[in-house]
């Protein structure tokens, strides 16, 4: 409780200083919008339907690419973790591709897939893939030897080993991968929309900057922060529900 109070107080103090700095004109309102202005700007943008439209555009792309990455990344990571042969074949390719930024891939993706949705979903997928893949891989590969042996001496067959040991050992790591991937996806989608889009939060804040609508620029950034924060919270809640043992270990 004390910790929660301190955390909230910290945010409140920053917002207050920020508000006062603008009110006392320590910074020009042209470059710095006050929190109160941002809130009313967000309200205005919700009322006229602009913000919902851009959020929907961004999150639609983001969640498509993200969920594709979750499924393919977890699947490939699990297979690589379980089958040594596949690991040897795929791992060097993964390691070579992985350092390449999703944004570096974007022009290529546009060349292949056109300027529409597909290229943006592709780079989201690409950016989100590796955290989930590598975490799943670590989860499957990292089951302690004695845990596997305990299950074997109790009579577990291979499928039972996968269901009751490997799956549960990997689950918290998969969820951690999902958290990291979500954060990466949020970064990539905004950048991608700045390069090529006619809607979305990235498009919105870039346009606001180019047309000198400073409050709208801040409203966009704030929205991104809120979505990123809430998304992370939701994934953590899901992890707590799915892995009660793990969350407690982490907290203790």
């Amino acid at each position: 409780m004390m910790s929660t109070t301190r955390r909230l107080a910290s945010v409140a103090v920053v917002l207050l200083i920020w508000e006062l700095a603008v009110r006392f004109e320590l910074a020009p309102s042209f470059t710095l919008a006050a929190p109160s202005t941002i809130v009313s700007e967000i309200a205005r943008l919700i009322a006229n339907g602009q913000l919902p439209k851009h959020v929907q555009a961004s999150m639609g792309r983001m969640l498509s690419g993200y969920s594709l990455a979750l499924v393919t990344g977890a699947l490939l990571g699990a297979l690589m973790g379980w089958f040594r042969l596949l690991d040897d074949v795929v791992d060097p390719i993964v390691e070579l591709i992985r350092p390449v930024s999703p944004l570096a891939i974007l022009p290529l993706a546009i060349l292949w897939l056109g300027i529409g949705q597909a290229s943006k979903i592709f780079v989201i997928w690409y950016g989100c893939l590796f955290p989930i893949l590598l975490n799943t891989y670590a989860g499957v590969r990292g089951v302690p030897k004695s845990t596997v042996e305990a299950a074997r001496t109790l009579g577990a067959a291979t499928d039972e080993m996968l269901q009751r040991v490997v799956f549960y050992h990997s689950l918290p790591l998969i969820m951690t991968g999902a958290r990291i991937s979500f954060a990466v996806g949020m970064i990539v989608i905004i950048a991608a929309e700045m390069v090529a889009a006619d809607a979305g939060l990235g498009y919105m804040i870039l346009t606001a900057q180019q047309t000198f609508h400073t409050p709208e620029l801040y409203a966009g950034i704030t929205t991104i922060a809120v979505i990123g924060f809430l998304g992370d919270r939701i994934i953590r809640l899901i992890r707590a529900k799915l892995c009660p043992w793990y969350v407690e270990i982490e907290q203790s």
Partner: protein
Amino acid sequence: MKIEARHLGKEFRLGRSQLSVLNDVNLVIEDGRFVCLLGPSGCGKSTFLRCVAGLERPSTGEILVDGAPVRSPGPDRSMVFQDYALFPWYTVEQNILFGLRLRHNRQLHRLDHRKVLSELVALVGLQGFEGAYPHQISGGMRQRVGLARALAVNPGALLMDEPFAAIDAITREGLQQQLVDVWRKTGKTILFVTHSVDEAAFLGDEVHVFGARPASIRETVAIDLPRPRDVTAPAFAEIVRRLRRAIDSGIVPTKAAA
């Protein structure tokens, strides 16, 4: 369960060289005996136990369990591990019932599970902790879960690999006494690996002392002291002395051997 080792040898590959860990181990363990395997760390006694469990394949010779050679691990020879090896994602209850809930045990009715669970929980003294996760309980309690989990599948033999080595001395004494009680109530054959002379002297009907690598059984000491054993009795001290001598002669090669 009767366990028999015949000319058992085990070698590990270490880079290009071979490391011989066990050499011509011969051993007969009669059903229902409490047998300790004693030796210094790294002498191969755990490797021997793992061969019995089916977790390692012998390089030469064989292990016979009730006359049949060991091919793979199985719940007829369940194991208790030094690091507990509990499943962190399962509660105490789920850990204990792990083996019972596997396919080959599905014919058992759920009611039987409940009965087995309550009996085992009472046997090892875990009442009230059925719903706890392993990380929420102490090391001593974790190992009692490990013991209950291994007993739940009703094995012919219980294989214990230095199960109390990571537990503090006071808790360990309690667990040793508890294990003796469990053994007397269940009548299981127990193979107990330890590097503690006192532990072997307190627990075993017979103690097989392993020599230095490549290990074979250097000496077998039968202990027929009444239980519960009085660790302060002169007869106990004499057993401990004999075991120590056997170990020492194994570590320092004699001139005749060299």
